[in-house]
């Protein structure tokens, strides 16, 4: 291979002659956010091994929050240093982009993760088991549900503090995912954040079988989608002779100079490009939860421990949309005529499918799952805009949406009956009479999901629809407002249930949370209202961050 194609971390080692492997040049400072989180995750593993059981929880929570905060500070530092705009470039031998969208999304993921970790750490909701406070996670993941060993673990007051390092590993993968600048880094990041999530899904304290079933389902389907993605990467490599985004983009636009003789037979073969591109899109659309790759969403959202669901729904979506944006805007802009019609179709069926199916749901977590599918459709409408506004509106929407989501799922953890969380909708009847504040907060989140003005949901929706309309996708906007109207129906139905129905005698109680969940919900409400009333600062931020480095 010619030297021009060798600027990827992945190909360098393979290509260099033995004994002449050049040390890769790594800009550690610019990768600090990821490295901090990854390092903290590793320390977290050591904490599990060496710190006594009774103090693990406190050490882990402290470590996790500090690491995420430090990583966020690093992101802010990089952005302040101009790496989001003028100094944007590609670090780590072409593997990772440090640019506006990457930093914006990393910041969003980190903030959302901090809030989500608060809900992970909540230990006031479940009644105390044998004198020790417990969180939402299984006492001992390895013990078979219903077995003696499980009972023993519960009795001993075990808690699965491994969730914190697992979450940190997932976050580190998510930080790389939207910044990945070659296909292999993209794949590794995908696996790094997916595997911990599969595990986290299986760790619910209550309804463990359901949780494990959800995890298996997620894992199998996720493995399928990873395989598709990997196959797509292979085909694109065959097409372009490189896994680097920039090189592939060059080959797509036909401006590549050097053809690798070994790949001359396949390079530039459009069949490889189309099939490979489609397969990679499939893998990403799976993570995003777009129809028709959405089948896992409701089951996994329902089965996973609710704090994990909130984390997944928010952070995974941000990371996956970031990667999707970069792929479409950096690698494949040259073939937008090919992918736009497909993405149009996906966006339309995602918006309509999510909204229509959500109407029939009777479980609040499944309902929120379908609502997240519909929202994925709205975001796709912004992705399709293929203009600068498209990028900034998607960035803004992702930020707005993730906080609403985490807040909403945090409220779901509060409504409980004897069997744990009361997620069946019928049990929410009359909640507004019994706990006006909790119901009002949840209503705010629902209205934001529905896109009612003065909430962040409206600002975000307006931004993406405006970008789509300016990008010539007026029809998508019309479908968008129609599915918004459909979606409004089921959000309103929940509000009706909470406020206009009589409370049932054996209804659930609302647990009084500790400061952690209160903070998570408070942040959610604050962000929802601030982004709804005065979004200008954050729109500016998204606007300034909307240029991909190539």
């Amino acid at each position: 291979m010619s030297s021009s194609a060798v600027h990827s971390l992945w190909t360098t080692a393979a290509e260099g002659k033995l004994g002449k492997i050049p040390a890769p040049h790594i800009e550690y400072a610019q990768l600090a956010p990821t490295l901090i989180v990854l390092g903290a995750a590793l320390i977290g593993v050591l904490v599990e091994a060496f710190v006594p059981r009774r103090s693990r929880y406190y050490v882990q929570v402290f470590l996790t929050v500090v690491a995420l905060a430090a990583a966020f500070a690093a992101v802010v530092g990089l952005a302040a240093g101009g790496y989001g705009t003028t100094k944007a470039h590609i670090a780590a031998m072409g593997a990772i982009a440090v640019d506006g969208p990457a930093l914006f999304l990393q910041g969003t993921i980190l903030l959302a993760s901090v809030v989500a970790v608060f809900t992970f750490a909540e230990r006031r909701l479940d009644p105390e088991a044998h004198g020790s406070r417990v969180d939402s996670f299984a006492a001992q993941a390895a013990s078979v549900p219903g077995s003696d060993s499980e009972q023993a673990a519960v009795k001993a007051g075990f808690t699965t503090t491994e969730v914190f390092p697992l979450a940190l590993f997932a976050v580190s993968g998510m930080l790389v995912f939207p910044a990945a600048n070659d296909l292999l880094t993209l794949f590794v990041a995908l696996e790094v954040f997916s595997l911990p999530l599969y595990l986290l899904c299986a760790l619910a304290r209550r309804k463990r079988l359901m949780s494990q079933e959800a995890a298996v389902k997620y894992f199998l389907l996720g493995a399928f989608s990873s395989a598709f993605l990997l196959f797509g990467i292979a085909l694109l490599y065959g097409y372009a002779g490189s896994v680097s985004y920039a090189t592939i983009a060059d080959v797509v636009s036909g401006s590549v100079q050097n053809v690798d003789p070994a790949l001359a037979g396949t390079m530039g073969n459009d069949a490889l490009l189309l099939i490979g591109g489609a397969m990679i899109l499939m893998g990403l659309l799976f993570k995003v939860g777009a129809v028709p790759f959405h089948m896992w969403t409701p089951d996994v959202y329902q089965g996973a421990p609710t704090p994990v669901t909130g984390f997944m729904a928010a952070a995974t979506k941000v990371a996956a949309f970031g990667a999707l944006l970069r792929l479409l805007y950096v690698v494949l802009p040259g073939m937008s005529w090919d992918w736009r019609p497909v993405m149009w179709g996906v966006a339309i069926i995602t918006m309509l499918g999510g909204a229509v199916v959500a109407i029939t749901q009777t479980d609040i977590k499944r309902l929120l799952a379908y609502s997240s599918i519909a929202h994925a459709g709205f975001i796709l409408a912004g992705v399709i805009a293929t203009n600068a506004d498209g990028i900034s509106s998607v960035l803004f929407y992702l930020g707005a949406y993730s906080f609403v989501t985490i807040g909403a799922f945090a409220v779901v953890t509060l409504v409980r009956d004897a069997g744990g969380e009361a997620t069946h909708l019928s049990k929410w009847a009359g909640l507004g009479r019994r706990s006006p504040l909790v119901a009002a907060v949840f209503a705010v989140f629902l209205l934001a999901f529905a896109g009612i003005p003065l909430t962040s949901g409206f600002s975000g929706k307006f931004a993406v629809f405006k970008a789509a309309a300016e990008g010539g996708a007026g029809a998508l906007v019309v479908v968008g407002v129609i599915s918004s109207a459909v979606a409004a129906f089921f959000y309103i139905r929940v509000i009706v249930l909470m406020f206009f129905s009589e409370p049932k005698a054996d209804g659930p109680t609302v647990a009084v949370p500790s400061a952690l969940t209160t903070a998570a919900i408070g942040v959610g409400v604050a962000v929802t209202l601030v982004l709804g009333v005065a979004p200008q600062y954050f729109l500016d931020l998204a606007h300034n961050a909307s240029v991909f480095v190539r």
Partner: protein
Amino acid sequence: MSFPLLTATAALPALGAIATAAVPAARRTAAKWLALLVSVGTLVLAAIQLVRFEPGGARYQLTESHAWIKDFGVRYELGVDGIGVALIGLTALLIPFIIAAGWHDADPLETNSSRWRPTQGFFALILAVEAMVVLSFEATDVFLFYILFEAMLIPMYFLIGGFGDRAHAQGDEAAATQRSYAAVKFLLYNLVGGLIMLAAVIGLYVVAGSFSLNEIAAARASGSLHMATNTERLLFLGFFFAFAVKAPLWPLHTWLPNAMGEATAPVAVLITAVVDKVGTFAMLRFCLQLFPEASKWATPVIVVLAVISIIYGALLAVGQRDIKRLVAYASISHFGFIIMGIFAMTSQGQSGATLYMVNHGISTAALMLVAGFLISRRGSRLISDYGGVQKVAPVLAGTFLIGGLATLSLPGLAPFVSEFLVLVGTFSRYPAAGIVATLGIVLAALYVLVLYQRTMTGPVKAEIQGMPDLKVRELLVVAPLIGLLIFLGVYPKPLTDIVNPSVRQTMSDVQKKDPNPVVEAAK
């Protein structure tokens, strides 16, 4: 910088709403007085607006303009024309009466629940609606208007769904189901209308590159903005659809009888006399001004729909057995008149329509609030449950009659002036529509007088015996409204002076002149 009067008029009730909601559960009465005080304060501010507004001056007066969301091209731009200032006056005037009339509507039935604060919520929501309605009359930025147009649905929705007639105990499952059905229907109809408008709002921005009424008008005048015919028509339809749902115009009206029937009488007044006016107001301000060509194109169809509304609403009102639904259908008929007046594209028609908005607000408030007092005494909305009320409660019957007569536009009462103007204005351009619409007046006489005859006259029903007459609080609500109906009926000049210059400007937007008189001068 001068005192931001327009912002203050909206901010006062908004802050009042928050303060009212924050009053502790036990201090229910304090919350009521606070809400009343705030609404009276708002009325004072609205009165100052009326005084400082100079008819015949600049188009938008008392303007304010601040940057808001630069990325969307949105500014916080306020300004009132004569039509806006008149409707702000109407809103600010009616809210104190609505609050006073609903004084006991939200008292909790069970006193043990300490955290549930329906009373505070009820009055806070009314003030929140007032704030948004006032601001929507002031907004000269399309986006700002849209936000308020949508956001006001939420407090309205809770008012309809959360507070039923005292007559139906809160435990009554069937009533609760009906009420939440009505609330959801209200919200969905208006939300769908609003979302379609959202698509048009975005489309407008793509075409015009601005949301400011002034900028768009200037660009249009200078010729730098030219909308393709089809684009303009589509955008017009998007806007008009939302306003027609809100107004409501046949065949998008079906939410109104449900909502007015299930809501308490003061809330029903809030819907029809205040919130719905935003729809007709927006037709005048946004449809005609932003899309003059498309407005002219759509006029024949809209006039036909308006005439159908007039006749259909009146016919269904005749057939109603439920007092509140009867008033609702009467309102649909009256909104038909208003919309017909707007789209007749004559200055008389549009002046009449604007006056009609104000007068209909006052007359419906009078009729509906008295009907509410009546219903709260007997605990039934059915006309057949009443009879001979005038013997037992003569003052109640008398005020009910005046409200009813105003509704049927009796000469001497305010609605007559406006209805006459609308009919004259329509007749000079669309004689056929004018003639058919006149039938609506005849039907109005029928449904009002039959309603009066069945409920108030005849032998006294057993359940009516001993029914108390209007109390002082109730009388204080009704008497000023009736006084105003008579005053504006005899001397409408103050109102027309404010409204007419603005109407002329709207007419010049659509470049329509009044048709010349066709009567040949005698030689």
